[in-house]
Each structure stands twice: as structure tokens, then as C-alpha cells.
């Protein structure tokens, strides 16, 4: 141990552990509470962290199965949560796939080729990425209304529209991949080109296989960002069955129709997989996120 240690260090270590644990208790309290609430009976029940009369009512409704109460009345699921989750996953998967495809080719050009206005384009991409899409929702709505007049599956209230709109936000991913490409020595590709490979072949068969890790990170990042996207989807999607999770979830907590328990189960059910994906991939994601400053 190189550090010079004061004598009281043992107590300080214990105090720190205690402090950290208390802090974590406070931080995790809301999350534990939601899990607990999802097992309580009814939508207005209060109680301790461990529910006294655990009930699977909310979980059954969240999974789309009508629930028969003790007195024989049948509760119908208020919202199609699984359908929303599926919509979110579908949209996020297709968008992230397209984003990955297009930003990889762009990043390749930015990393390896020389062309006019390269610096200007890269810098302005960073600047335009900062403008929140909330502010141009009127324009986006008009745009997709017009597109829908010509191509109906890309119009208002289609998933195609949300996927297409997500293609506006690739700057960050391009920067991430470009940084990675630049860290790979270009002599391999040059050797291949000398041997008669085309630029495209050098990219496809040499650089891409070397970049699989960063491509996975960008895919996951784009996936999570698309799952969380709220403003654009809230304007473009109208029909209850078409909503994504981010837009639909708030419908549980309207003042007139306050379904706290049902929400809790739906939140755990849909939030858990996304949380686990994030925690599992955090090592890779953190690098990508902190480089760009997307969230928080």
C-alpha cells in the first residue's frame, strides 16, 4: 500500500460502508417499493415493503390474462402492455439495425477517406444533434402527414414513421464508430487494396470483422435510446394498440383513472428486461455514453 494511512482509517472504512449502504437503501427504495406494490391487492392499497396479502392480480393483468377476484368479479387488463413492449422492441430493433448499418458506412468514410467539407459536416452533425426534437414536433408531424399521403405505411400512426424519424439521430453513433475505426491500423486495408481489393471489399472483409465489439455497443446504445424515445412517438402514434411502451405507460396514472398497482406490475415486467440488458452491457455502454453525453 503506497498511500500514507492515518491511524483512524479502520473506523473511517466502516463509516464509509455504513454511509454507502444507507445511501443505496434510499436510492433503491423506490424500485423495491414498485416491486412490492405490484403484489398488493387493489390499486389503492398501502402497506409495508413486504405485502401482507400478496396477490398476483396486477401481474396477471399485466400479462394480459383476465383476473378473477375472490368475490367472483372478473378484472379485464386495462392496457395491452405486452403488445406495447413488443411494439417498442420491434421499433427499436429495426431502427437500431438501420442506424448501425448506415452509421457504420458513414463512419468508415469519415475515418478513412478524404473529401470536401468533411470537418464541417462532422462538426455540424455534433451541433445539430443537440437540438431537441420536441421543438420541431409540429414540423415533424406535417412532414410525416405529407409522407403518409404518398407512402401510407410511413404516415402518421405507423411504426414505419417512428423508425424513419429515428434515422435523424445518427451523429453520435457515427462519432463513436469513427473513433474506433481510427484506432485500427489502416495498413491491413491498404495491403488488401494493393492486392486488388476494392475500397468496399477492404471495408467489408477487413475492417468490419475487426470492429464487431464497437458495433455491438452501438447497436445496444441505439436500442436503448430508441426504447426510451418519447416525444416523437407520442406525436406520431395515436391508436392505443400502436403505442410504444414509453408513450403508453403513462396512461396508467391519469388522475381520473389511477391504476397504481396495475402500473407497478407493468413497470416491473417491462422495465426489468431493459434494466438487465443495460446492467449486463454496462461495461461497454458506459464508454460509449460518457464519450457523447447522451443521457442524464
Amino acid at each position, binding site marked *: 500500500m503506497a498511500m500514507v494511512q492515518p491511524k483512524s482509517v479502520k473506523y473511517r472504512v466502516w463509516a464509509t460502508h455504513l454511509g454507502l449502504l444507507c445511501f443505496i437503501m434510499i436510492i433503491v427504495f423506490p424500485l423495491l417499493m414498485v416491486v412490492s*406494490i405490484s403484489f398488493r391487492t387493489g390499486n389503492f392499497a398501502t402497506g409495508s415493503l413486504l405485502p401482507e396479502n400478496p396477490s398476483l392480480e396486477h401481474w396477471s393483468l399485466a400479462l394480459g390474462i383476465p383476473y378473477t377476484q375472490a368475490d367472483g368479479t372478473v378484472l379485464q387488463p386495462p392496457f395491452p402492455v405486452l403488445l406495447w413492449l413488443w411494439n417498442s422492441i420491434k421499433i427499436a430493433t429495426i431502427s437500431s439495425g438501420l442506424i448501425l448499418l*448506415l452509421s457504420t458506412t458513414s463512419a468508415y468514410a469519415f475515418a478513412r*477517406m478524404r*473529401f470536401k467539407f468533411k470537418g464541417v459536416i462532422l462538426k455540424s452533425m455534433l451541433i445539430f444533434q*443537440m437540438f431537441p426534437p420536441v421543438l420541431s414536433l409540429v414540423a415533424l408531424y406535417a412532414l410525416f402527414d405529407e409522407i403518409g399521403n404518398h407512402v401510407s405505411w410511413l404516415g402518421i400512426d405507423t411504426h414505419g414513421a417512428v423508425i424513419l424519424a429515428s434515422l*435523424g439521430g445518427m451523429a453520435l453513433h457515427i462519432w463513436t464508430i469513427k473513433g474506433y475505426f481510427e484506432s485500427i491500423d489502416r495498413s491491413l486495408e491498404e495491403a488488401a487494396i494493393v492486392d486488388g481489393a476494392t475500397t468496399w471489399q477492404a471495408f467489408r472483409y477487413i475492417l468490419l470483422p475487426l470492429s464487431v465489439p464497437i458495433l455491438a455497443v452501438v447497436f445496444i446504445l441505439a436500442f436503448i435510446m430508441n426504447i426510451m424515445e418519447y416525444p416523437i412517438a407520442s406525436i406520431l402514434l395515436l391508436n392505443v394498440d400502436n403505442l410504444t411502451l414509453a408513450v403508453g405507460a403513462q396512461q396508467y396514472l391519469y388522475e381520473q383513472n389511477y391504476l397504481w398497482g396495475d402500473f407497478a406490475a407493468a413497470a416491473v415486467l417491462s422495465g426489468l428486461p*431493459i434494466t438487465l440488458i443495460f446492467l449486463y452491457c454496462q461495461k461497454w455502454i458506459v464508454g460509449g455514453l460518457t464519450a457523447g*453525453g447522451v443521457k442524464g
Partner: protein
Amino acid sequence: MHSHALSTSVAERKRIMNTSIFKWAALGATFLLALYLTVVLYAQDQFAFAVLFLVVIGSALYIFSSNKAYAHRYIYPSIAGMVVFVIFPLIYTIGIGFTNYSASNLLSFERVQEHLLSQQYQTGDERYNFKVYPQGDQYVLQLESPSGELVETPSFSVTADEEIDLTLQPAESAPDVAPLGLKDIVKLKNDLRQLELVTADGKSLRLAGLRNFAAMSAAFTLEADGSLYDQRNKVAYYPNDEIGFYQNADGATLSPGWTVTIGWDNYLRVITDESIREPFLQIFVWTIAFALLTVVFTLALGLLLANILQWDQIGGKGFYRMMLILPYAVPAFISILVFKGLFNQNFGEINLVLEGLFGIRPDWFSDAGLARSMIVIVNTWLGYPYMMLLCMGLLQAIPRDLYEASAMDGATPLDNLFKITLPQIIRPLVPLLIASFAFNFNNFVLIALLTGGAPDIIGATTPAGTTDLLVSYTYRIAFQDSGQNFGLAAAIATVIFLLVGSLSLLNLKLSKVKV
């Protein structure tokens, strides 16, 4: 060796030659189709869209046909995505800011004129009650005149979307089928509107309600000087392109109006109209305060935790790290809603705990101060893990012997923080803090899901809440208000664009981005 030069390598040239005939045919076809669509859009008065389409397709054709622009082929799709879905909406929004585009001025002039000219009014007092009898695919209409006579139409079908003239003839008795109920008549309403029934004495009847026909005629006639003459009260309305309404000599206007350019009026309204200026300024100050407080709190907490986790003596770092980034891993749209429920005044768990401990039940959603504190608390919860992760990365880069030297000199932890840690990490941290500030300045999702802006600011003519940020404020002006004032919302959006733009330029300068 650079690929620009490589693009004309032998293999490449061969490939281009082989595919050139096919390529030029495809390009030609795309070009013709694009030209056609552009003309169609232009003819539909969608000037902005026509230009956008022309730019996107035109540049695509150039880039994919010219060998000089070979590198641009790789970047074209992502740039096009950005142009269409970020830059175009931005310019379009700035444009809307100079118009009176709103729920009352939604249509083009031609559509407004068409709408007004199609309006009908009842010219006499006589109403003919009617019944509709289905006859196979067709219908027969039977009417009872005010004097009690029964008349009926020949059978007609309603498939075509055009006016039908029918002559009424005396009817002997009701057909032996049941007449349609009101529900079916409502369904047929638009078709019945197309009917013009001519009585034996030459009167022309039109649908006047769900139960009767009456003599109707057009409410307005178009005069040679472009004015609309109101047949009911014999007044002329002239189109006023300054305000986008038809207006008579007394200044009274006809609804709906059309969209016109009104210059800086929206901006002037924000400055001069007190019922807009007051809430705007209040929201502006709160937005800055909120973004600043968030950055300060998340940074303080994140830096503290990062420092603790850097400490060699602490075991179980993996566990702590995992638990501490949990708020970051849960999707924000879920955790914000969770807090919305937990802070609920009556059955929220937070108030239950507070009541148990201190006997208080704060009203988090109706008191402005409490609502704002709640938002800052929730956002600190959401945002500190990001700062912690940033700081952990930066702290690792500080040479350890600096701290050893300071320990030798008997420095306190505070000395270490202000004299070693902060000076070492501040340079790379500042651009990230500015980015975080800009993000929170526009943190729409938090406000929309947590409070929706509530509680409202009293005396505001636009929907404005004490917890609204500028972004949620513009969103509410555009989409929530009954007025749906898109023009005003776009003007405020433009102001935010300028603020965000200058922030990101500053950021670019500070972070010394290398390209």
C-alpha cells in the same frame, strides 16, 4: 495512400463500366419519378416539401452517379436522415414562427374560400320532415311538406361523391319497409347533403338537419372583386392578408382563417403581451435554475461517490457500483412514473413515510415550491450515476503520487478536492457539464411525465405551469391549448434553438474536437 485515389483503381473502374448501362437507366427513371413528384408537391402548394424532396433526391442522383463524389456515397444516407428529420424540421419550425399558423388559421386561402362558399343557410321557415327507406342498394326519401302532403323521390343510390338532383313527386303511401333509424341517417348524412330536391312548385330543398329538409341557399357568394357577400345580413367581407381572415367594414371576421406571414408579431407578443411575457420570464428563469441545480447536485453527488469508490480500502466495489448505477439502468420513462406515484399526496409511499416520521403530508403536485423541489430531487436521482461514471473515468487519470505528496503535507480531504482533484478534472469535465446543462435545459420527458407543468401559473393566457421548462411550455402551447398556437410555439422554439445552438458551439470550442 488514400481511398479517394483508390476509388478509381482498376477493379473499381471495371465494375463501374459493367454496371453503367443499368445504373444510368435506374438513375434516369429515378430522376423522372422525382421530377414528377416534385411537380405534384409544388402543385399541392407544399412548397417547402417540394424543395426538400428536390434537394434530397437531387443530391442523391449526383452523388450516386458522379465518381468524384464516391466517398459521399458512404455518408449520404446518414446525412440525408439528418437533413430530413433534424435540419428540415428545424428550418420549417423557424418558418412557422413568422406565421399565424394555429387552430384558427390552419388552412390555405383556397381551402378557406372553398369552405365558406360551401356553407348553406335556410331561406324559408318551411321544413319538410323526411324518412329514408332502403330499397336494395338504393334509397327512397319520403318527405312531409309543412301542409301535410306526402312527396317522395325516385330511388337513388349514394355511391358517387357528387351532387344529385331529384324531382319530388306525390307519394301515395309509405313503402312497406321500415324507415332507417337515426343512427343510420347519421351514417348517411354526408350523402344526403349531396341531394338537391326540387318540389313541384320549383323550390329547391337541401338537408337542414337530421330530420328535415328545407329551402337552403349558399350563405356567401363570391363577388368579382374577390370579396364574399354574406346573403343573410347583406354585408361584404374582404380578404385581409395581414391577419389571414375575411373581414367586413366593421372589422368583424369570418372563421376559419388562413395561414399568413405576420413577420415578428409572435416575438413581439412574447415581449409586449404581459400575460405571455410574465409566464415566459418565470419559466425561463426556472428552466435555467433547474438545469443549473441539476448539474450542481448530480456533479456533487457523483464526484463524492466516485471518490469513495476510488478509495483502495473499500471492498465490494463491484456490488456498490452496480447498485449505484441502478437508477441509470432503469428506463427513465418508467422511473419517472414510479416517482409520480410515490409522491402522490394521498396514497404515495413517500408521504406515508413522512407522515409516520414527522406527521406531515406535503402536497407535492399543487404547491409550486414543493413541485419544483420534487423535480430536482427526482432528476438528481436520475442523473447522478452518469456524473459518477464520468468522474470515475476522469479520476483514474490523476496521478496517485499527487495525493501521497499532499498527505505528507498534512492536507485535509477538502484540500485534496479543491487543490488536486478539481483542477485536474475540470478541463475535460466542462464540455460534458455543458452538454448535461443543455440536455436538462430541454428535459422534456421528465416534466411531461412527472408534473405535466402543474401547478399552473395564474393569469397566463397560454397554458403555462410553474414547473414547465421552456420545451414543455412550447409543447403545451402547440399541442395542449385549445388555441393550438403553432406560430407562437415555433417562435419560442426558435429562441431555444438559438440558446442551444450557442451552447453547443461553445462546447465545441471548449472540448477542442478534432476531426
